[in-house]
């Protein structure tokens, strides 16, 4: 269970709605379903953080 990665999806949905979730999936290349089973590895967390920052920079 990747709690941290799932948290990123919730964060994206809160900030940018459904489009934010889809864009996060596109940027990280990991869908929310796969994020649930993926490891909260430092590499994965770094990728999600960068993607979220990119979304924020672009305004969603």
């Amino acid at each position, binding site marked *: 269970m990747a709690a941290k990665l799932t948290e990123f999806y919730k964060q994206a949905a809160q900030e940018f709605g459904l489009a934010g*979730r889809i*864009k996060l*999936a596109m940027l990280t290349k990991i*869908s929310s379903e796969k994020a649930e089973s993926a490891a909260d590895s430092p590499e994965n967390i770094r990728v999600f953080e960068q993607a979220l920052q990119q979304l924020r920079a672009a305004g969603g």
Partner: protein
Amino acid sequence: MKISTKLILFFCGVVTLFVLLAFALLAQTRTVSAGYDALLSQQVRQAEAARVIQVSFKKQVQEWKDILLRGSAPADLDKYTRQFHEEESQVRAGATKLAGEVQDAACRDLLNEFLAAHRTLSDKYQAAYQVYVGGNFDFKSADKLVRGQDRPPTDLFDQVVQRLSDDVSASVSAQERAVGRARNLALAVSGGLLLGLGLVGFLTVSNILKRLGRLKAVSDRLAAADIEGLAVDISGPDEIGQFGDSMKGVHAAIEELSRLAAAAAAA
């Protein structure tokens, strides 16, 4: 490595190979040309000079016979005597020069033997000439003194000519063998390099086509919204790897969209 870099490197490799082959061919042509030049400037020229001396000697003997045959007329005696001595001088000067030039020791020895025999023959001709002129142009007495005497020097010089001709033939054969070896080496090296480049090119293109095929299969499934169990396992540092990476993003986005759609439908 990017495909564009691979293609540029391959192109540069082919161009470099052909430039190197052109230079090698040029160098080989120069070597062959230099070999034949050396052959022409030495051995062929010496063989030709030997033939000229051989002919001059035969003409000298012919002039002697003309002296005996027509020397009773003072004008003919003067004419043929002068021509006899001219040919004699030419033979001696030519043979002396040739003896100083030839590399083959056996040939040089033959030439020196010929020169010694030619000097002896000249003395005999001179004695016979005195008998001929002093004996009221009695050609039989004069001829008796030198009859058959030109055979030994003739035989000696025939050997010189034969030996020099054989040397030329042997050198031409050696040159032809060297050219053949160089040609075979050039063919083997250029063939090997072309084969190597062809193999590298074939493997590169095969790899690109194989990965493009996998990319197309992924693209076809995405286009058909067939994402169930789809795995985009195309990676690499080149353009296809980058494209595959983008496909992973598209795949994840479609998966996310499907999940959201399913959730919305269930609600």
